[in-house]
């Protein structure tokens, strides 16, 4: 009896916390899954750069270009072409300018020719990434609290879901289609159970990442409020080449970078990610090479660095690698699993699919809430609350992807010279989402599903077609040089378009009424099976 009570209590918690926070959690999961490809999406949203291809001589050519563009700068940072972005991104700071992460001046260079490429004003994948944990248009702290509470409820929903699941091992590989409510239940269970390690890990690590923001008191009391000191001590990172004022700048010819790069590449299998030059073109110049990626989660993918004399190329004393303590190691494992900074393409795809499975799990759960209550609604007539849940389900599950598709289209169609262009792209995103909400409220339930999924399929399928018409830079880079970043995104859009078509066909007219009559029949079957 006690066990039954526990199971029922869990069921109640699972149902209602899932319903209340489901829409928000769905948005967090979808934007989070896309954030695994944040850099790739940002690159894809710069169509004028798609033809760029990485070249072995990129470091030397970028150094030469910097010498021409910013000879008097105090600092250059050169991010070399890599598997996630085939362009060279450069940033430089004038003498005496404060060196912040996004300050100074920046440019994007072609990965082969090192010619400056046009940059269109866009937030790119960063908008989706920020939305994932800070939503939009509200104070950062409030938004993070909301996301933090939703994450806690997600963890509770996962655990209560496992407890209330009656036949977790017997039904492990079971999916029974075309049986109304039973099928939704099977789909929800399979999506949850089969990717359970991923769901648990991603939710728990997300909570851990937000923990330092939500509950900073321990850190604050130990570090007297200087949280920056805590993080820099934990990360053991110091800004490259702290500026020393009052030293005379003596011009000196820079050393050739190519031999230094070869030397570093022989040492690091992943190659070099970034070159930083302090006081370039002087005798005090220092070149810092940073390794791309790293081998273990325990040190949060921290990469090795090499310091070299900028005039002679002679090695200087390099910062020693620090072994993390046990607490840092655990925090590092979970936070880097969540942020995935270290990952190769294979793991990035695995996690992306995990995120999509999680989104689908939440979506099927919310649809299940509606389907389960349909027979009752049919008997007792319509109910405002039920109608509201139906509409919000369509507007979030189908509407959010439509809004993201509209955001991508805005990136292509808004004039490049437009004022506040990046904000306008985001405005289009929210306008499209609002339109989906209104549409879902005004149209019958099944039609709303079908029309929004149909619109999604069209939006996504036509994007690659539009790019081809505008000049096939992405395809050319992929087919002639094997540089697949932008082309892979186009193919992914087509795949999701196909899924939207499948969803729209599934919701074809007549199906809704058939599905509605079935739950009672399948409910009898369930009663027949389970004593």
């Amino acid at each position, binding site marked *: 009896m006690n066990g039954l009570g526990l199971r029922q209590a869990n069921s109640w918690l699972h149902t209602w916390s899932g319903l209340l926070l489901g829409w928000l959690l769905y948005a967090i999961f979808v934007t989070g899954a896309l954030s695994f490809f944040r850099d790739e999406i940002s690159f894809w949203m710069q169509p004028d750069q798609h033809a760029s291809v990485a070249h072995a001589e990129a470091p030397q050519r970028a150094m030469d270009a910097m010498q021409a563009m910013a000879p008097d700068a105090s600092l250059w940072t050169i991010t070399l072409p890599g598997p996630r972005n085939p362009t060279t991104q450069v940033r430089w700071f004038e003498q005496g300018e404060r060196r912040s992460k996004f300050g100074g001046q920046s440019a994007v260079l072609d990965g082969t020719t090192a010619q400056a490429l046009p940059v269109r004003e866009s937030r790119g994948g960063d908008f989706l990434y920020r939305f994932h944990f800070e939503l939009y248009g509200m104070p950062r702290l409030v938004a993070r609290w909301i996301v933090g509470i939703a994450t806690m409820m997600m963890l509770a929903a996962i655990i209560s879901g496992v407890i209330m699941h009656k036949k977790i091992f017997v039904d492990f590989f079971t*999916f029974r*289609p075309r049986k109304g409510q039973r099928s939704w239940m099977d789909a929800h269970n*399979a999506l949850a159970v089969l990717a359970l390690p991923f769901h648990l890990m991603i939710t728990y690590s997300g909570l851990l990442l937000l923990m330092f923001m939500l509950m900073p008191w321990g850190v604050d009391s130990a570090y007297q409020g200087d949280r920056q000191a805590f993080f820099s001590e934990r990360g053991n990172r110091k800004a490259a080449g702290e500026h020393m004022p009052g030293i005379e700048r003596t011009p000196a010819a820079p050393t050739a970078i190519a031999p230094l790069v070869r030397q570093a590449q022989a040492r690091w299998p992943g190659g070099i990610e970034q070159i930083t030059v302090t006081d370039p073109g002087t005798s005090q110049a220092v070149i810092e090479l940073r390794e791309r990626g790293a081998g273990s989660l325990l040190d949060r993918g921290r990469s090795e660095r090499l310091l070299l004399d900028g005039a002679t190329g002679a090695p200087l004393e390099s910062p020693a690698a620090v072994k993390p303590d046990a607490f840092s190691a655990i925090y590092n494992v979970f936070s880097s699993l969540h942020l995935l900074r270290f990952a190769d393409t294979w793991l990035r795809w695995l*996690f992306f699919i*995990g995120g999509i499975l999680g989104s689908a799990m939440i979506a099927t759960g919310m649809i299940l809430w509606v389907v389960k209550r349909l027979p009752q609604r049919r008997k007792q007539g319509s109910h405002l609350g039920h109608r509201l849940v139906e509409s919000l389900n369509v507007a979030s599950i189908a509407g959010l992807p439509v809004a993201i598709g509209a955001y991508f289209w805005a990136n292509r169609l808004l004039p490049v010279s437009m004022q506040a262009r990046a904000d306008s792209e985001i405005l289009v995103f929210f306008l499209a989402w609002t339109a989906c909400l209104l549409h879902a409220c005004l149209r019958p339930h099944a039609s709303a599903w079908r029309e929004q999924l149909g619109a999604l399929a069209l939006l996504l399928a036509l994007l690659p077609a539009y790019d081809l018409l505008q000049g096939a830079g992405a395809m050319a880079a992929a087919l002639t040089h094997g540089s697949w970043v932008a082309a892979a995104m186009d193919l992914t859009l087509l795949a999701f378009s196909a899924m939207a078509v499948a969803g729209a066909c599934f919701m074809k007219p007549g199906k809704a009424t058939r599905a509605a009559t079935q739950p009672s029949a399948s409910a009898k079957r369930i009663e027949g099976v389970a004593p």
Partner: protein
Amino acid sequence: MSWTSLLLAFCGLALLALSMEKHREQVFGDRPTMAPPLALTCAGWLLLGLAAMPPISHHGASIGLAVWTGELSIAAITVVLLHTYAPRWIPIVLATAAAAVAALALMPF
């Protein structure tokens, strides 16, 4: 390397499913099968363990285990979809996957 591990995970999970009465019926119907369920279970778990080896040896334990669990999820979803929509194809798919694992293992790098 990555594909070897994913295919091994698929073979392991497919064998585990076949060790269950109701899924064996889906795949073979009334035809008797020679392999006893216990042997299928053992072979299935063995393959799942083997599937963890390539990513661990390539990435180290921490990233390797993350890769392994991700691959398990995708393999499991594939097994479920096959059982639902093409149960009779499972022996052929299983044999092809096993052959592919052998081919990948013998391929010179």
